[in-house]
């Protein structure tokens, strides 16, 4: 089972993300976003930097949005794309992680934001699943 896949949306880009638990869901969502931002093979992003991130929210969905928003901010600021994520702490409203990645020479997509559009993290037989819509 792949942790993420792109799904059709008229105006924007959507990702279906899965994970056995919230930790894995958050990691897979970030990796899915990275795949949208830069083609690692093509763009030869050297994973040479590590960055610390800590986000607070008030439920799992808002945590997911806060987390991805932080990564979008980095991508715009200096085209930083992360490929390795080590989660130190996670709860339904808090995430602390170390991201390893690098600055891509160029980005494939201009992702403006992550939206709450129909955002819901649901329980499945395999764990958790959600569809995140990005505004591009």
């Amino acid at each position, binding site marked *: 089972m792949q942790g993420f896949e*792109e799904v059709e949306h*008229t105006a924007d880009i959507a990702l279906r993300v899965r994970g056995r638990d919230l930790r894995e869901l958050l990691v897979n969502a970030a990796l899915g976003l990275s795949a949208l931002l830069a083609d690692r093979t093509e763009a030869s992003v050297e994973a040479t930097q590590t960055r610390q991130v800590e986000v607070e929210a008030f439920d799992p969905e808002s945590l997911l949005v806060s987390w991805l928003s932080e990564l979008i901010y980095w991508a715009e600021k200096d*085209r930083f794309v992360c490929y390795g994520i080590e989660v130190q702490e996670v709860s339904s409203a808090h995430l602390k992680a170390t991201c390893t990645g690098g600055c891509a020479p*160029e980005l494939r997509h201009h992702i*403006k*934001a992550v939206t709450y559009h129909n955002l819901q993290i649901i329980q499945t037989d395999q764990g958790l699943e959600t569809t995140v819509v990005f505004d591009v």
Partner: protein
Amino acid sequence: MVDSRAIKQIDKYLFEIDPSFREDMRVPARLYTDAELLEHALGDASVDQLVNTATLPGVVKYVLAMPDIHQGYGFPIGGVVATQLPDGIISPGGVGYDINCGVRLLGTHISEEELKPYLDELATAIYNNCPSGVGKGGEIKLKTGELDRVLEEGSRWAKARGFATDEDIERTEVGGCLEGADAGAVSAKAKERGHDQVGTLGAGNHFIEVDVVRDIYDEEAAQRYGLFVGQIAVQIHCGSRGLGHQVCTDYVQRFQQTVQKYGIRLPDRELVCAPLNSPDGQAYLAAMKAAANYAFANRQVLAHHVRRAFAEALSGKVRNPHVFQVYDVGHNMAKIEQHEVDGERITVCVHRKGATRAFGPYHPDIPSAYRDIGQPVLVPGSMGTASWVLRGTEEAMRQTFGSTCHGAGRAMSRTQAKKKVWGGELREQLEGQGIHVRAGSMSGLAEEAPSAYKDVDRVVEVMHGSGIATKVARLVPVAIIKG
């Protein structure tokens, strides 16, 4: 899902969904459309999204869909929602992430024939003068504290820096500056995203286009707007860049809890909002105005860069390389305006998301040179197709809170478009039509393929036929500059 049986036709181009359709609807939902465009709209979730907006606290009269409506997130794109002050809501999702995304139209004294030998040179000069592409910064370096001036003064800041004329300011919606903007309501992160992007085009569907005025439909209005057949004109389509995206992100996040505080129940979390008279609502309004001012300044600086490109490429080659402003108008904004509802003049917050203001004649917010004609409305087409200049009408004031369509509206997803169209092929096709293309990214080009959009002429026909915004001029592209 809304099906066609719930939609009643009440006029040639007007359809309505009764509030009895869903028990949480507070007002009817109206769609300006025709049979074919309606079928498109019913093909995605846009009509359901429109119905969702009819549930918002303080919503008045009806919610509206323009013929270019398509699925957004929360609010549909091509929607107009007015809420009554003092306690009606304001919603960041009702404005969108690209706050004050809009269009500026510049006119020239150059004819198509006169430009022909130098068009390629001009396209290159515009591409070189106007930074574009994902996350690209520009040449304007703001001094400490200067970004706050951009946010609070908009185009007036640009004028102080020598990037604007008085005429540019006069011919910009609200003079290029929304009063009441507060840089303090904009986060440090938003400012970080915006500090080096003033005067940049960005990527996605944003573009600069060199056009030829192909047809005139309304001689009097065209003459007043300074347009004539065969004339070279330039459109600039972009918005508030990363700064606006971050402002929306910040407030959508903050309002997730605000709605709980005010006991607002919503069918979609992207619709989060706050009462206009609450500190939360006021903070978003002040931040949105700041981002809108940033966008006005951004398009103003880009216009300055375009003028420089014209001077570089055409000085001494054409009789008069002067570039003047026709108008600048946004299509993603919430504005506090006075409108008549049930025979009473009331103050409302008009959310236009993918909809253009279209004020009728004699409205005080229209530049004096156009006041008796009505506001120019700028409707860009999809890449390679026509664009339109319309004029706002009294009918728009009566029926649509002074609003009309904003473009062609997507019909196909970006991923679908890329599967069907290859960027290089599209470029050849456009160049085969005599259109010069300067694009940073071929896949970006494919995403914006004209076949991914509805027919703009058809969209405009609905607005014209309804008398909401009537045709003045039709423009066709000769050069496209994209990120």
